[in-house]
Structures are given as C-alpha cells and as structure tokens.
C-alpha cells in the first residue's frame, strides 16, 4: 500500500497499438493494491494484474501528455497517455514497486480470497494427487517402488518427497548417484507405461567432467535398465545440443561416458537452453508488436527469432521419446489435463518461456489432432494467464520444499477447482474419447509447415487481428444445444412411457371415450416451448465482425479525409522494448 501515491487519474487515453490513426479511448485509470484498472467512457473495463506486468516504461513527454507503456507477461501491451506528468510519474513508480514483489507473502495469491470455505480449499488442493497419478500408471509394481530417501529433502531439495525408483536401487546407490548429479537430481521415474512396461526417467546432468565416474550412478542406470525388461537398450536423451553438453564438461559437468554405462544409447536432441529461448521469444514479440508490418518483415522476423524452430525441436524430441522409448500415449499426457500440469509447472520467478513452449507444443498438437484433446485453446491460454498471475498457489515457488515452507496449501487456493468449475468453457466440443482406436499414440507430423504462429496467444488482446467469427464458439453452443435437445427427448420419452403406463392401467376406460389420448398429448408437449430457434447464438458470437475499418489499417484515408483527431502522440512503437 505504501507504494501507491495516486489512486485515480482522469482523462487518461488508451491507445490502440495497431491503429495508425492514433485511435484512442479516454477514461479513468485506477490503481489498487493488486490491479491497474482502466474504465473507458463506455464503461468498459480493462484489468491488469500487477504481477502480470513485465515492464513499465515512461516515454518522453508529448503535447497531449505523458505516455506510459506497460508490457505484460501474458503478451498484452497497453499504451496509456496520462495528461499530467506528475501523475504519470507516480503511477510509473508505483507500478515498478508493485510489479516487483520481493517476498512470496506479498503475492496476490496470499491476499486473494475467492470466498471458499476451508474444506473447499483443502479439497481443491487434493484434487490432484501425485500418488494417485502414479497408481494410474501402475506404480508401484514389481519393478518400481516408492522411495522415502528424499523424505526430508535431504538428498535433493528440488525434488518432491515422494519419489519412485527401481526396486533394485538401494539407498546408498541413490545417495551416491545424487552426489554425482547436478543439484542432486538423480534419475527418478517420471512416467510409466503400463502396457509396454517401459518408463521415462528424468535427472540432471552428471558431474562427470572429463573423466570422473561414479559407480553408484552406473548402478542406478543399470537398475533402471533392468526395470524395463521389455527393452533391450536404454536410451539416454540429452535435451541439449551436443556442443553445449561438451562445453559443460569443462565446468566439471557434462554427459555420461558411454564406456562406463552398459546398454546405453545416446541421443542429443538439441533443445537450446533457457537463455536462448528467452531471447528468441523476445525477438518474436518485438516482431509481432511492430506496427505496419509487412508480410516479409513478419516472416523473416519469425524466422530470425527461431521460435518456431525451438517449438519444432521440442516436439521432435517428444516424438522421438514417445516412439523409441515406450510408445507412450500422448493423449493421456494431455487430456488428463489437471494431472500433468502439476508436475510440469513452470515457475514464475525464473524468467524463461519453457512453460509457454510446452503450452505451444500442446497447441500445435491440438491443431493437428482436433479431436484428440478434451480441452481447447482457451484452457491453454487460461493456464498461461495464471502461471503469471500469482493469483493461485499452484505455480508459486520453485519446488515442493519451497511450497511447503510457504504453507501454500493453507494460505492460498488451488487453480484447478476454478478451472473445473468453468469446465464447459474449456471443453473441446469435437473431443472424441475413442479417437482413432487403432492409434494408441498420436503421431504428430513434425514437418516444418505444420508449425504455425500462435496468433491467439501472442495477440490475444489485439482483437482486430482475430477471426471475426469463431467456429469454436458456434460448435460449442451447438453441441450444448444438441445435448439439451437430447435431454428433452429423453424427458419426453419418459413422459410418454409414464403416460402409456397410466393409460394402460388406469385410463383404460377413458381411452374408450377419447380415441387417441397419447398422441394428443404429444402434439403440444410443454417442452416444446423450451426449444430455441435454430442457432440463436450467431448474434452473440458475431461480436466484433464488421468492426471499424480504422482497426485494419487499409489506408491513411481516415486522417486524410476527416482529420478526426490531431495526432495524439508521435511515438515510434519500436521505442517500447521488453526489459524483463
């Protein structure tokens, strides 16, 4: 609270970042402890959570006021013009402070109160249970068991307490292996494929340097290999480019020496590290945020950013993993959405778009297999939103240990029940649970042209760029309606049955008088009033079509002709740069 000096500024302009005619909305800006709120003259509200703010920038003063550019982690960019420089400065300073929370306890999640009672809160956290997840995979079993080695986070701080390891791996082996691994992240079970009796394990790089070896670690991998009885070889996939792995050797790290490990095959898959990814995403955002972009600029910018290349690399690696190792089903990887995200949660403090990449890879899969996923694009976007919002406790902290120390489960709420409550919004109406029964796994085609720019992610707030009519909404409403109609039919059928039953037993006499009582009743069932005209949702769906030509930059005609507004600010968009 002490950071807020000005809570309300009037006559603020909100500029449209893609309109050349400097179109703007005028309204009032409010600053609260958690949000920045803009209400324009037609009472439309724009809410920006402080935690979403990646960078705030004050641009040089212009005739109409002081421009303030805010870039958000969910790829929203807003451009305000505040009439008085003093106000602008105050807001700027406040936002700087508010968006950079030093302590976990100041995060929104700790103050957010969704009016759940305690038991609901507890239930929300119990919605996803890792042990249950492993049981679904068929673990523990003859080969894999729960290890209590990390019960007190003694061996590895960043691992959870419960870990699954091969039965043959004794505690000394685990301890020995963990000492040989970066940050103690020894090989543990990540995914077990019941039918193929095959497992995916994960670990960090070995501290091998140029020549060091560790017998326990070798035993550990041996044990894992034996726990996969149906596979003769074990593959070690190194997600780095080989060059990076070699360079790490000089720092005493590196990769496993094949001579020391039997039955191991190596595969480097060349996914770049987080620093490359970060700058790649930054380049992408710079390109897509440019005003007056030509197709050429866009495509070469897309290429130079390398972003799609990285997405392809990630998916290529995943396909390799799926195929070679265990032919695992990607469907379960996705469709039990709530399960997986728990393990794969990104973390908001370490700035790297790895989690965004994961979501984007999933999105690419949904584009290729429209019927294979139970959830839709909105779900992915919503998760992305909340990874950064810090509104729920799920994505806070860096590891299980930290989360326990923060007492997240008592102090904050879990996101999943909120998503589940809005389940309908996130369901894929085309989802087919029996999708391609002959295909137990999805075989994504990783040919380059299948990777597309995810417009709905990177331009989700630039509405003028979206398709003006959404097939998805239409289908969703239609299938909803179909369901409703089917229920009506069932209801009616039940009523008919009831009627017939009655007429059989009780109304036999009446039947003699009125020739066909049942059909008469059928002619005007009460439910028919419930029936809606076919596809009434069209109007609702078609919200922004036929939108203003000025949104679309066909020409400068508007200003040439009507001289509607004097140029509000003379800013080059390029000035605003990502600083996170």
């Amino acid at each position: 609270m002490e950071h807020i000096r000005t809570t309300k500024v009037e006559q603020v302009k909100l500029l449209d970042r893609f309109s050349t005619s400097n179109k703007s909305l005028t309204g009032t800006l409010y600053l609260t402890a958690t949000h920045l709120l803009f209400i324009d003259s037609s009472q439309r509200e724009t809410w920006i959570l402080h935690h979403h703010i990646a960078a705030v920038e004050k641009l040089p003063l212009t005739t109409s006021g002081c421009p303030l550019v805010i870039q958000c982690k969910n790829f929203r960019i807003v451009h305000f013009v505040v009439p008085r420089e003093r106000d602008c400065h105050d807001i700027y300073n406040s936002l700087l402070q508010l968006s950079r929370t030093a302590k976990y306890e100041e995060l929104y999640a700790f103050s957010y109160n969704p009016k759940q009672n305690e038991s609901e809160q507890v239930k929300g956290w119990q919605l996803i249970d890792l042990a249950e997840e492993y049981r679904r995979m068929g673990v523990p079993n003859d080969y894999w068991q729960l290890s209590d080695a990390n019960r007190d986070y003694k061996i590895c701080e960043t691992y959870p307490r419960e870990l699954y390891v091969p039965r043959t791996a004794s505690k000394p082996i685990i301890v020995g292996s963990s000492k040989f691994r970066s940050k103690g992240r020894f090989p543990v079970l990540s995914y077990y494929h019941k039918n193929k009796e095959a497992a995916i394990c994960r670990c960090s790089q070995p501290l091998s340097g140029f020549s060091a070896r560790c017998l326990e670690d070798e035993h550990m991998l041996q044990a894992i290999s034996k726990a996969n009885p149906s596979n003769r070889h074990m593959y070690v996939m190194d997600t780095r480019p080989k060059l990076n792995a070699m360079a790490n050797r000089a720092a005493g790290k590196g990769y496993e020496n094949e001579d020391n490990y039997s039955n191991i095959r190596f595969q480097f898959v060349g996914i770049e590290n987080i620093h490359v990814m970060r700058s790649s995403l930054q380049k992408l955002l710079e390109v897509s945020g440019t005003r007056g972009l030509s197709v050429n600029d866009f495509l070469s910018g897309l290429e130079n950013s390398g972003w799609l290349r990285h997405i392809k690399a990630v998916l290529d690696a995943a396909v390799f993993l799926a195929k070679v190792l265990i032919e695992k089903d990607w469907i379960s990887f996705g469709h039990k959405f709530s399960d997986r995200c728990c393990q794969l949660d990104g973390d908001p403090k370490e700035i790297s778009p790895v989690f965004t990449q994961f979501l984007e890879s999933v999105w690419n899969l949904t584009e290729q297999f429209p019927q294979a996923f139970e959830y839709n694009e909105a779900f992915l976007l919503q998760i992305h939103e909340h990874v950064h919002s810090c509104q729920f406790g799920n994505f806070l902290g860096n590891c299980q240990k930290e989360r326990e120390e923060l007492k997240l489960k008592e102090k904050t709420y879990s996101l999943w029940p909120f998503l589940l409550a809005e389940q309908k919004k996130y369901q894929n109406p085309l989802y087919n649970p029996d999708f391609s029964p002959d295909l137990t796994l999805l075989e994504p085609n990783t040919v380059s042209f299948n990777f597309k720019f995810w417009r709905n992610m990177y331009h989700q707030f630039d509405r003028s760029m979206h398709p003006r009519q959404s097939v998805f909404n239409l289908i969703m409403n239609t299938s909803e309606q179909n369901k409703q109609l089917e229920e009506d039919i069932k209801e009616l059928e039940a009523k008919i049955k009831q009627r017939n039953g009655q007429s059989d037993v009780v109304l036999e006499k009446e039947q003699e008088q009125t020739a066909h009582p049942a059909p008469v009743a059928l002619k005007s069932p009460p439910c028919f009033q419930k029936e809606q005209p076919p596809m009434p949702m069209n109007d609702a769906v078609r919200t922004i079509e036929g939108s203003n030509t000025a949104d679309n930059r066909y020409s400068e005609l508007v200003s040439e002709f009507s001289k509607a507004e004097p140029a509000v600010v003379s800013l080059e968009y390029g000035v605003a740069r990502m600083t996170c």
Partner: protein
Amino acid sequence: MEFSELIKTATVEKALLWRPGLDTPVTGTLCVTSHHLLLSSCPRGDLELWLLIRNVDAVEKRCRSSPRLSPRVCPLAVSGVPLTLSCRMSPLLSPWAAPGSVLPLPRLQNLGWYQPPRTGASLRDTRVSGSSGTITLRCKDLKVLQLEIPGMEQCLNIASSIEALSSVDSVMMMYPFFYRPPSLRLEQGWHQFPLETFFQRLCSRSSQWRLSTVNRDFGACPSYPEAVIVPAAVGDDTVTKAARFRQGGRFPVLSYFHPKNGTALLRSSQPLTGHNRRRCPEDEKILGTILDEGERGFIIDTRSAQAAKQARMGGGGTEPKSAYPQWRRLHRALERGRPLQESFSRLVEACSEPCVSMDRWLTRLDGSRWLSHVKAALSTACLAAQCLDREDCKVLVHGAEGTDTTLLVTALAQLILDPCCRSLQGFLGLLEREWIQAGHPFQLRCARSASSHARSKQEAPVFLLFLDCVWQLSRQFPFSLEFGEELLLTLFDNAYASAYGTFLCNNEKERRLCKVKESTHSLWAWLNQPEEKQKYLNPLYSHNPLVIWPSVEPQSIQLWQGLFLRWIRPSQHLDEAWREIRRLVEGNNNSTQESTGKRLSQPLPDSTAGTEDGR
C-alpha cells in the same frame, strides 16, 4: 489434326503408378486416349486412374537400363500408410459410358497423404525387370504422379504423347467439346446470371445508370460482353468515342452499385494519354457526369505511381488531375504477370519439399512472396470498399489492361461489401460477371500452372490469387460465406483443366466464335445439381448482412494449406474433425430429419458414389 497422330503408343501393360503418400505402387495397364490418361490396376482391376491430359503441366522423363526410382524424382520415402481410395466417380471422367450402363469406375484420388519416412521399403519387389523409364507428371492441380513404364522406347513414346496432347492449343479440340454427361443438357447454366437481372436490382434504386448495347457484336470493346452498364447521362456515341481512349477499348463501366449510400464501383483500363498527354472529352464526360458538383471520387490505380508514369511511354498513362479535377488518384502496386507466376512457382516448389528445416521453410515461404501478394490484394480491395462504404465516394479501379488486378480488386471489394455475393449463387454470379464476362483472359493466364518449364509471358495466377483471398475471408468470417473450401478448390482445378466450357477462351467474343455456349457444358450447371451442390455448401453459413472487414496484418494472413499442400499434408484428422463439425451443426438443423443426419454422418465420398451410380 487428328489426335491419333499425336499418340505414339496407346497402351502399355504392367505400368507402375506411384504418388507421394501411396503405400505401394499400383501396377496396371496404361492407356493414352485423346483427352485422358487411364490406368487400370492389374490383375484385380479395382483401382483406376483417370487423368485429364490437359491437367498435365510438366512431363519429366528419365530412362535407365536398371530400373530404380531416383531419389530426386521420389523425394518422399514410401511409408506404411494404408492405401485409401475414395471410390468416387465423377461424370467428367466417364465420357464413354453410355447412359444407363454406367459402371462404377473408381478413381484414384487423393491417395493417402504425406507421412514422414519410416520404412525404407523399395520398389524392388513390384518392379519390372529389364529396361524401363520413369515419367513424372506434374499436374496443374499441383499433384505429382510417377509412372514407371517397361521398355525405354515405350516410355519415351508415352511421354511425348502426353506432352503433345497436353499442349494442344486449339480450343475446339479441347475436352469440353467432346464431353457429354448424361445428366445435363448443353444449354443448361449458360444464361443463369444475365446482366439484366443484376441491372434490374440496381435500377430500382437509382436512375443514374442504364443498360447499354453499345458493345453489340463487340464493336466498341472486344473483351467486354455485349451488355454493359454505363451512366444514364451519356449516350452510346460518347461511349464509343471514350472507348478509343482506353486500352483495348475498355471504357469505364459499372461494376457494383452500393445500395447503402448509392455509391458505385467502376472499372476500366488505363487511359491512352501517352507521352503527349492526350485528352479525351468523352471520357472526361463519362467520369464527370458520375459525380455531382463538389462530390469527390477515387481512382484506384493498381500500379505504382512510378509504373503508371512509365506507362506513358507505351501510350498508356493515368488520368491527369487537371482533366479530371474531381477525381483523386491512389496508387496501390499489385503484382501481376511474370513476377506473380514466379511467386506461385516458388511457393509450390517450397511446399514440395516437406523435410526442410524450420528456418529453410520460412525463408522459402518468405522468398516466394505469395503471402505478400495476398495481403496487398486484400488491402487494396478493402481500400476500395472503404472508399465506397465509409467515405461515400465513387471509385474507379484500373491498372493497365484492366483485365487482371482490376478484376481482382473489384470482385474482392464486392465480396466484402455485398452480402448477396457471399451466397453460393451470388458468388457464381460474381465470377460470371466480374471474371468470365468481364474478360479475364483465362486461356492465356491459366495455360500453364506452377511447374511448367515452357512458359510464355502471358501466364499469371491472378484468378488463383483471388481464390486465395476469398479463402482468407472464409477463415476470418467462417459463417459469412455460403460456400466452402471445396468450391474454391474445384474452381481452381477447372480454371486450369476442365471438362466444362466455362473457363474456355479469353472473352465473350472468342466464346461466341468458338460456339462455346452451344457445344460445351457449363460448370455452373454441373455445380447446381442438388447432390453436387451439397458438397460445396458451408454448413456453418448464416446470412450476414454486414460488411465484412478482414484483418490484413501479416499475423492474420495464412498459407492456404488446403490448396498448396493438398496432396502433401496428412489431412485425415482434419477431415474427420470437419466431418464432426458438419455432423454437429447439421444434426442441429435437421434434428427432426433423422435420415439426413444419417446420410451426413457417413463419409462423403461414399454417399456421392452412391448417388452417381444410381444415375
């Protein structure tokens, strides 16, 4: 000329047909006829290929004594995809079947799809021994077929026969003049969209225009139809004189009347001002009477200001401000001619190599510049529409000849502005009015497609660019067009090689000379058959009375995968999803009609095969 002279070898036994995505090659008897290449699989005879030879764009042959498909001609490794056949017989492929005795002739079509290479299976097992040759046929619809033919001489004969037949230039020798489908009558569909009907709709709202017969017998302008709409205030003699001042006689005519505010879209060719800045009072009068006093109009020139200036050297030019004081000129450079054709070729080439890296793919996509052309065409059309609808101004569009980019802009602008053009009938009417009758030289522009080596200067995929823009609109407004992608693909295919006469010749005058309307069938008649029409309708369509303003940001312009990757990308899952959408929506509309729902839940090819067999 006799076709038999061009056919050196008519039949070959044990020929091998292969297409990217096919599991195993099909062996069968190959037969070259005057208009088709046929292959009937042996020994079972259950698969057949019917390929219109006119569809062949390029023939590549290579002969070797030890047969082996070279990796270059066989860029996609054979995969383990099961052979999927859509057993659909289209009447355009059954010219010899007598009515009533139609045999179900399945056709190899869309055989499988591209899959990443998995097995290194070679063709060794099925291959013929001894010398042989391979022919690669690159078709105008962008599909690639490979034939392995035993015997070097036979192979060369077949290749040169196909080459000779595919480059027959004479219009009257083309397949539409021989094709007689039993279900259609010759005159059907040719006069479905008379300009009179269009004019009647207009004159109920405005008396500023009249239907003129100044071009009777194509006297004033050879590339215009006989009936045109001109300002009511000018007489035919003025128009005749103005025609002499415009290239090819294409004087300003009305293309579209905007009922909302009474503004109009006109088109013409460039004025022949030349280097001595010639003027023409009649032309000035036509454009002058259109505007009231103090009213302003826009001339959208589809060339850059520089190019328009340079055109003066060749006798062309633009309207000088001094002579047309109420008109403001806007220049929007649109690509045309050779560069556009090359752009198309480069894109097709890029698409044919699916195994390239991400960077390479983006470089090549970018290098083709096709999407830039799409964006430019769409934004210019939007500009024209904006002038009409938002600025309440009349607009004249022209480039140089007025038969290519001009029509691209006027047709697109109408699609954006006029809800009527977005219905199936309205769209076909728009094509008839703004492309076919307006004199887009289809025969010259669509003689060759993307992979032809022998290219004259005249080819340009302007019509394809138009279809691509329409597709972009359909992506951004998926409920606003009554027709779907399937129609656009069919139009593309037929513009380049067809059994119908609709896209033959370059203008109405030529069509009259060749008796196209008397001797060939109209594509519109075929498309309008109820069971055929069903395939082209968009199940999501609902009438949208608004103007549809598309986004023209590069982020919103997409590659038309359904066309450029039609034979390459795996589409099974997308097709299934689309069928599911269809089922959901149509199930909703016809929830009472159970039978309809059942029919639609079946895969489409089956249902069409069924109906056609029955005929």
